């Protein structure tokens, strides 16, 4: 147990900060800790959490994927179209996963095959994929998705918990296993930590990066399908700007933007913190304008925590030298 804490000190700090935030909201409005509200927090962290765990894979390899919001929209649209036209919901979900994987693989191709900067490459696909979403739908939302599909994600288990919360938790567990228990995970960190060294020690860098972007695309697709179940309709504008929240969740959770470090647990807590913040500010009725400011400040402070922790000694040493 002690080892778990010392290994995950960073996650622990963010988790305590999240609890502290929840405590503040509870003092201001005791209804914050009602079971239904706690459910709301977990439900509202799902989309961002699933997107964040995906983008974390890209970030760990030293990359980024700005196109996830658009992959999310395309998948939602295509799966909506399939289910409306009578395709079996489970097959539609498979199709959605394939779409996400293909769009992610295309990002991987741009980054490895054409050797483009990930930021620029996915900036391009962000516009490209959004354009496809517009062209496919002609700007008209796809509606009337059958309940047979919606209930797969949206249905309730015990205590009012919805299936998509479980889906998110499973995704985080899978991500945790890949990153900490498999060779692929070690390769992902190695590529992000020092690409040259990884290459020299025999890591297949191209394959590893493909895996990262495919996982990222697949996660975006799953988020898109959950959104579809939750709203019952899909439109080309869905997910605009969602990549920024996903990056924020990953960053708060301790993912290093330059690559080489990040954990499923950290990203989970990062997404949880943002959801607590979002729901809490609505519960205590903070003015919308101030929400932007508070959210921004929290992201900055959380990142500063990381800096303080990681380089505390070096930081103190530098101060002494001055």
């Amino acid at each position, binding site marked *: 147990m002690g080892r778990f804490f010392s290994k995950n000190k960073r996650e622990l700090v963010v988790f305590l900060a999240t609890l502290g935030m929840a405590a503040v909201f509870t003092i201001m*409005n005791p*209804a914050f800790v*009602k079971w*239904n*509200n706690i459910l*709301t927090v977990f*439900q*509202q962290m799902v*989309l961002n959490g699933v997107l964040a765990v995906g983008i974390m894979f890209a970030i760990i390899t030293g990359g980024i994927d700005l196109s996830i919001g658009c992959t999310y929209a395309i998948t939602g649209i295509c799966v909506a179209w399939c289910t409306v036209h009578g395709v079996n919901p489970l097959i539609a979900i498979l199709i959605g996963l394939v779409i996400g994987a293909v769009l992610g693989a295309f990002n991987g191709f741009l980054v490895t095959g054409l050797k483009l900067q990930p930021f620029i490459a996915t900036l391009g696909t962000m516009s490209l994929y959004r354009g496809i979403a*517009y062209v496919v*739908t*002609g*700007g*008209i*939302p796809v*509606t*009337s998705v059958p309940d047979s599909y919606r209930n797969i994600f*949206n249905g309730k288990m015990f205590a009012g918990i919805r299936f998509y919360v479980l889906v998110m938790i499973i995704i985080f567990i899978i991500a945790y296993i890949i990153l900490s228990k498999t060779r692929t995970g070690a390769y992902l960190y190695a590529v992000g930590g020092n690409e040259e060294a990884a290459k020299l020690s025999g890591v297949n860098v191209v394959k590893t990066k493909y895996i990262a972007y495919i996982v990222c695309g697949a996660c975006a697709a799953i988020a898109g399908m959950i*959104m579809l179940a*939750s*709203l*019952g*309709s899909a*439109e*080309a*504008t*869905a997910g*605009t*700007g969602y990549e920024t929240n996903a990056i924020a969740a990953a960053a708060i959770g301790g993912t290093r933007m330059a690559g080489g470090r990040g954990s499923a647990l950290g990203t989970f807590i990062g997404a949880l913190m943002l959801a607590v913040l*979002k*729901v809490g500010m*609505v*519960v205590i*009725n903070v003015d*919308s*304008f101030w*929400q932007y400011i508070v959210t921004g400040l929290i992201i900055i402070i959380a990142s500063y925590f990381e800096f303080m922790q990681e380089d505390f000694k070096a930081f103190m040493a530098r101060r002494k030298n001055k």
Partner: protein
Amino acid sequence: MKAKQFAAVLCAAAVVCSGMAVYAEEFNPDQVEGAMTIEDVRAEFGEEVPVADGITFGGVMKSLSNEFWRTLEEGYHAAEDKVKEAGVDYSIVIDATTDEADEIGQQTMTSNMVNQGVTAILASPISDSNLTSAVEDAQDQGIPVFNVNDGLIASAEYYVGPNAYQNGLLAAEWISKQLGDEGQVAIVIGMPKAFAARERTAGFKDWIAENNSGLEVIAEQNADWDRQTAKNLAATWIQQNPDLKAIFCNNDTMALGVVEAVEEAEADILVVGVDGIGEAYDSIRAGKLDATVDSFPYYMSQVATECALRVMAGQELPRVVATPQALIDSENVDTEAAEIIGWTDATYVKAE
């Protein structure tokens, strides 16, 4: 060092103040004195609109991937057909950006139309400022500019569009009637920077204040016109406020998200949107969405065409002409739009 910081603070304060000053002087078509409806215009200047041969209008619009703008375009062409039926040589060329954010592209389109020498420009700008210089070029060449809905060009001579403030009034009035004028309500705002969002919200709240209504606004938050964000917001409100009776949304997309939250919570809450998109009509028919305020783009562009042609014929129209809008609920959802707003086609005649 101190002095420098002080200077910086002063500069920042100056910038903030000047920004506020600009904001205060902003052109607001909803509050302009002497605004008329098209019925007023016809009563004042006569039913018949004389049209000279050889007029070509330039229509500048936004993304045709949006249903609203496609319908607006159809209205322009419907008006074109009616003018032609009167035996007049008239046409309108329409250009639209591919997305709703291409501000520079829209400016280029407008400049091209000026260079082509169109008779007048009917523009629906993306922002309040992106067409400013193109509009000035047009005016230098004596081409009048009609601002049709959306971004507000303060320097345009005419504004033709719906009264966003009235959207809010209509919604508040309807909710009050349904609830017997008492109960808690909440507002889902679009983008706070958008004129339409500010005005719709203000209209809604002012109606409640001015009528000493028993409605009580317990929460208002923005959801950036996003369906999922609006749903999340509503879900939180609903389980925090068991007495919430109605939610007013600044547009239909958000209202349709809120409807999902209401259904999931199995709550009895009225949801009202604005825009009158096809999906909203379907939702009202299905008994899910309760009402929407439609501003009828198909007729908006016909009014715009008629007003521009009247100005070409020398009539001195007011600065602002408000286009028809109406609240749609389960009672009139299947009524023809023309019947709801009492629409009659313009009477065009060939000018002598």
